């Protein structure tokens, strides 16, 4: 009885999938006129062209390495994430905030006891933590020059807290984490409002006239990435504390 039912569900699912697959195949083979899904379109035919040439405001502007532009982040993905589409990123931070809030709200409060750690873990934990903090810090400070950025940096910093938890060392309390989270979140939006007061536009990068490729370039981007990193780290560390009892 049970097996027959699961077999039936499997067959129905395969049918649905094959219908969708057939539909996608048909669409990709369709020879109507107009742009097709299978057409080969390069970034130069999309909005990305302006992002890469950094000429959204002035059409004919050009830039060189070490010069200034409307956006001075050397990593173009970062410039899209934290400047051209900054509002998306702030909303993403809110998504993480809401889900972690819901996580802490819903999860049952019987926490695991930490088994007494071995000497090796206990000894090496501070060194590992400092290493993790350094890598995370490097990542968000250099987010506008090299791959990386606030989100992985936050994740790496939070692993430092995780190691602390597993090694049974007292690092942070949940109350502190909550305060870090709220302060970082509020300051992201206050920076947005500050830019409204200064320039008249929300979430504008109002520190200008620096050079592409410098460590201190890209205006507000490193600041935003730093705030995001601390917020993400605080939120993810909160998850570990929900699972494990603090020592």
């Amino acid at each position, binding site marked *: 009885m049970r097996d027959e039912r699961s077999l039936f569900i499997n067959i129905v699912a395969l049918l649905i999938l094959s219908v969708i697959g057939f539909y996608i195949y048909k669409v990709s083979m369709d020879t109507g006129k107009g742009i097709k899904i299978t057409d080969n379109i390069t970034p130069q035919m999309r909005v990305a062209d302006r992002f890469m040439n950094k000429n959204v405001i002035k059409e004919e502007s050009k830039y060189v390495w070490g010069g200034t532009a409307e956006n001075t982040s050397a990593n173009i993905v970062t410039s899209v994430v934290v400047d051209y589409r900054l509002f998306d990123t702030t909303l993403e931070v809110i998504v993480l905030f809401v889900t972690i809030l819901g996580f802490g709200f819903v999860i049952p409060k019987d926490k*695991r006891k930490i088994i007494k750690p071995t000497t090796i873990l206990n000894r090496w934990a501070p060194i590992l933590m400092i290493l993790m903090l350094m890598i995370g810090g490097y990542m968000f400070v250099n987010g506008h020059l090299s*791959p990386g950025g606030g989100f*992985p940096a936050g994740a790496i910093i939070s692993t430092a807290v995780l190691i602390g938890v597993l090694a049974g060392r007292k690092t942070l309390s949940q109350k502190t984490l909550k305060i870090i989270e709220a302060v970082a979140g509020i300051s992201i939006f206050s920076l947005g409002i500050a830019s409204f007061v200064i320039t008249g536009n929300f979430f504008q990068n109002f520190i200008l006239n620096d050079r592409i490729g410098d460590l201190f370039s890209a205006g507000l981007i490193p600041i935003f990435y730093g705030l995001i990193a601390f917020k993400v780290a605080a939120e*993810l560390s909160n998850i570990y504390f929900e699972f494990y009892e603090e020592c």
Partner: protein
Amino acid sequence: MVNRVYYLGLIIAFIMAFGSLWALLTDDLFKAIVVFGIVSLSSSVMFLLMQAPDVAITEAAIGSGITTALFIFTYKKLEDRKDER
């Protein structure tokens, strides 16, 4: 040179496809979680082949590392509950 990269991509694509099928069809929950972690990690290599190092780092840290850790914590918590009964 291009060929070698292509074969690497092919191998990773097979690993991902078989890994995800295995993760879904196996009965052992813990095995499924670990295999899912492998799938996620190999997808980050795939991102690297697609010239997207930013995404690769984020996927490796968040998609592969922390998501898998969350699954394992959940598994442990559910195991604890089983012991009580």
